[in-house]
């Protein structure tokens, strides 16, 4: 969830709650005020009526034509004692002139005359329709709420855009940042100290990881470089030893095994060194290369080498795929993809290679899909294969990155498919 959405959503939710409580209080306060006013006037009216009646003056008509009316009648002592002296309540009255019921505030008061009789006076005063009021209030609150929400959203969006710009610029920069790649320097001028700190922290951390990455790269490069000579010396010594005619066959076979292990170590080292060189952009002999042709050349060799695995190869050339890249890197790319296909195809399986003008695809039959996120990592191997260094696909990936190409892997219809296209 984006920060912006979170803030908006929380503001809206809080507003609903606050406005609801506020509306209830508002309604309650207004009703209270209205009742208070009505009760006051009812009280005054009742008092006038009682004084008039007690003094024997002429009473106003019972019904003044509006719903302002009164009743005066005698009640028993028990009744008078069982009811409070004065009560107010809300009622609806039927008004004959209007032929409809209207809400009214009612005052009931019981008083005693000089001669000890109990009289009850009921006075009706028209009042506001509370349901209408509630409806109106609700309508206005909803309207107000929507208006307020829109205003707040607009203000928030504006505030966000203005104040959070440096944050989003920084996030955008971080999104684009690639370790070990070419990165634009962070340009994010701001006068807000928090954002400045964040900028500085981001720059410091990227610089630090860049440094560590460089050191690591350098270390791998140096280590594999330094290992070359000792490895070659060991191999040469072994070979000299193996030329000794007095060795028994058993000794010779042990030596041969050691020799083989050392050779695979040498190969792995060579691949690592090659990876370092590619990543350091040490291949600059770019020229136009026809990959179809290169494929055909290598395919013949590999078919001969892997003849014992009885793999069928099918090549479809819809067009010629030409790329501008280093010739040696093109060889690395093609050789490793082909080798990968031949080594990992099932015995008696099938390899297909197809070309278009902007890409080529190589696929081999295989049982289980591989992890497409890790397949191009160094030393990631779906299943350990004899004679495989685990660096072939890492090399393919590096070559593509260095040559404006992109390589993707997918598993479809029981086949591992690698697609190389211009990026």
């Amino acid at each position, binding site marked *: 969830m984006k920060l912006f959405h979170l803030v908006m959503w929380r503001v809206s939710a809080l507003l609903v709650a606050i406005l609801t409580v506020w509306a209830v209080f508002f309604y309650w306060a207004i009703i209270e005020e209205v009742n208070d006013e009505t009760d006051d006037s009812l009280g005054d009216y009742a008092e006038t009526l009682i004084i008039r009646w007690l003094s024997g003056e002429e009473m106003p008509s019972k019904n003044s034509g509006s719903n302002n009316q009164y009743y005066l009648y005698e009640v028993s002592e028990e009744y008078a004692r069982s009811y409070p002296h004065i009560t107010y309540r809300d009622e609806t009255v039927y008004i004959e002139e209007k032929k409809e019921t209207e809400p009214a505030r009612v005052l009931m008061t019981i008083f005693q005359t000089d001669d000890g009789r109990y009289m009850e006076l009921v006075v009706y005063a028209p009042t506001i329709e509370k349901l209408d009021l509630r409806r109106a209030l609700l309508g206005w609150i909803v309207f107000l709420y929507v208006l307020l929400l829109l205003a707040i959203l607009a203000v928030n969006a504006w505030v966000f855009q203005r104040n959070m710009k440096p944050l989003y610029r920084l996030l955008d920069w971080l999104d684009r940042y690639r370790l070990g790649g070419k990165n634009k320097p962070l340009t994010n001028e701001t006068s807000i100290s928090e954002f400045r700190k964040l900028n500085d922290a981001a720059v410091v951390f990227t610089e630090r990881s860049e440094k560590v990455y460089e050191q690591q790269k350098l270390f791998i490069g140096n280590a594999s*470089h330094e290992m*070359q*000579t*000792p*490895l*070659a*010396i060991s*191999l*040469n*010594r072994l*070979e*000299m030893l*193996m*030329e000794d005619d007095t060795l028994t*066959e058993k000794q*010779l*076979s042990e*030596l*041969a*095994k050691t*020799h*083989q292990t050392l*050779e*695979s170590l040498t*190969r792995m080292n060579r691949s690592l060194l090659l990876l370092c060189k590619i990543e350091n952009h*040490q291949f600059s*002999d770019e020229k136009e290369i026809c990959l179809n042709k290169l494929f055909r050349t*290598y395919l013949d*060799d590999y078919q*001969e*080498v*892997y*003849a*014992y695995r009885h793999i069928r190869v099918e090549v479809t050339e819809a067009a010629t795929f030409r790329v501008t890249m280093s010739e040696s890197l093109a*060889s690395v790319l093609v*050789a490793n993809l082909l*080798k990968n296909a031949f*080594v990992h195809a099932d015995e008696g399986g099938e390899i297909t290679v197809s070309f278009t003008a902007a890409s080529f695809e190589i696929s081999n039959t295989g049982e289980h899909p591989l992890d497409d996120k890790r397949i191009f990592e160094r030393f990631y191997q779906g299943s350990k294969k*004899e*004679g*495989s*260094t685990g660096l*072939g696909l890492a090399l393919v990936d590096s070559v593509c990155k260095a040559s404006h190409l992109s390589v993707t892997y997918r598993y479809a219809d029981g086949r591992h498919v690698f697609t190389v296209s211009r990026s």
Partner: protein
Amino acid sequence: MKILIVEDDNDLREITTRSLEKERYVVSQAPDYMTALRKIEDYDYDCILLDIMLPDGNGLDLLGELRALGKRTNVIILSAKDSLEDKVKGLDLGADDYLPKPYHLAELHARLKSLFRRNTREGEHTIRYGNIELVPDLFKVLIGGKEVELNRKEYDILSYFMLRPGRLVNKNTLAESVWGDHIDQVDNFDFIYAQIKNLRRHLKEAGATPELKAVYGIGYKFVIE
């Protein structure tokens, strides 16, 4: 044949010396630039194996010194820097060959052999071993004076062995030399065996004196019994 090895890595120098001495070369060693300079001033060599990165100087400067001294010595540059630039510069300065380090001793021997052959038998471009004659310029093979038809791979294998007679040749190395660098990491060498079998048959039919002997688990040796 007298050879000077200019190489600062003791291990590498020692093993190269031993291997060359086994081939009956006379070998001198120089671990640094100054020693090498003194030696080339005082003595004459048939070939100098020259490392470029030396602790007290650049091996390429030694090429200039050699020229200043007016000596026509063959030089094979050995360099860990297998960059094209170094190679071109070295060959421009009068080096005869370039071998990237780390090198295979068998490879070094083959280079030395072809270098000396070029020098000693000017005009005659054939390699002989036993009753086999190989004419690299024409891709022709003569056994006992009669031409033998070989396919491309068989010819490449034979010429590889002709330059390394009597030496143990590793299957891997052979595959990489004949098929190319991309044939590494192979765990099955049936494809070599198939070609070797054919080559053996051709040699036997033509009555060649040397034969290809398999060395268990490692590779082959081209020897005259």
